[in-house]
């Protein structure tokens, strides 16, 4: 049964803030990059914007694994998610939604001629043996991240 936990992270999965993406190559050498969108799909899946065929893309197709750090723009809480690649979609409602959002992001950064969505990479969110997803982060005063369901909060940064 799918836990409802990913739904409470939707604020961090709307493409407001750029996310960090970690992958490894076939030899285990890590790669750290930024990604424009980590998009909520359902309670077990997210979609990452596939914009270029580069080192990150090569690693994803080779190992089928990724790790993302997303930020909730309201609480500024960070969430770290382990991901397993499922498939790439290059048409349909999800693709069109992400394509429209990417156009807005590109315009905001003056990168209209650089950013172009080639596909929506679907990933399953990996849970630990207890069915939990690790959460880390900073919390703005008066803004408590929604730690409901089976979320495991493994760290936080207190603000002055």
């Amino acid at each position, binding site marked *: 049964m799918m836990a409802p936990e990913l739904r409470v992270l939707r604020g961090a999965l709307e493409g407001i803030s*750029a996310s*960090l*993406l*970690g*992958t*490894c190559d076939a030899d*285990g*050498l*890590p*790669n*750290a*990059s*930024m990604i*424009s969108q980590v998009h909520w799909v359902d309670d077990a899946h997210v979609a990452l914007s596939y*914009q*270029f*065929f*580069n*080192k*990150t893309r*090569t690693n994803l197709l080779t*190992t089928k*694994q*990724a*790790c*993302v*750090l997303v*930020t909730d*723009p309201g609480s*500024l809480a*960070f969430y*770290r998610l*382990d991901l397993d690649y499922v498939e790439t979609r290059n048409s349909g409602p999800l693709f069109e939604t992400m394509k429209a959002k990417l156009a807005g992001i590109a315009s*905001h*950064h*003056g*990168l209209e001629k*650089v*950013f172009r969505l080639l596909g929506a990479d679907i990933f399953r969110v990996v849970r630990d043996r207890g069915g939990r997803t*690790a959460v*880390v*982060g*900073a919390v*703005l005063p008066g803004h408590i991240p929604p730690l409901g369901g089976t979320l495991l909060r*493994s*760290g*936080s*940064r*207190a*603000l*002055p």
Partner: protein
Amino acid sequence: VSLGARSAAGRPVIGIGVACRVRDMSEVRVLFSRSANLPLMEAFANGSAVAATFSRARDHRSIQLKASRASIGDTEPGDHSEAARQSAILADELMELGYTRIQAEAYAFCHAADLGSVAFRPERVFTQTPGPGAGAELHK
């Protein structure tokens, strides 16, 4: 600053740094929040290689350094003030992008008592600016 590693289980791990210092133009030290990067610290303790990407908020222009080993360390004299200085610069850049001051400062903030560091000697350098060339190696 984005920090990449590989866990003992073989999975990629991503973390975030708040500042960077360079010693003798040979050793890079990235400062970060310990509590926000526990899986990353565990990976380095298990001997993971490191990837560190430094990005400009305004246009995401980035460069990536990699090394086969990295060591977790405590803070050194001057680390706290340097982290505060670089965090303030990032906060100013985020405000230029539309963040409110409280959002920008919270995003860039790291409590002094929570500050840790990872040190490494870069072995390879890559462009990482978003685009088709991201990940291309820069040779001497």
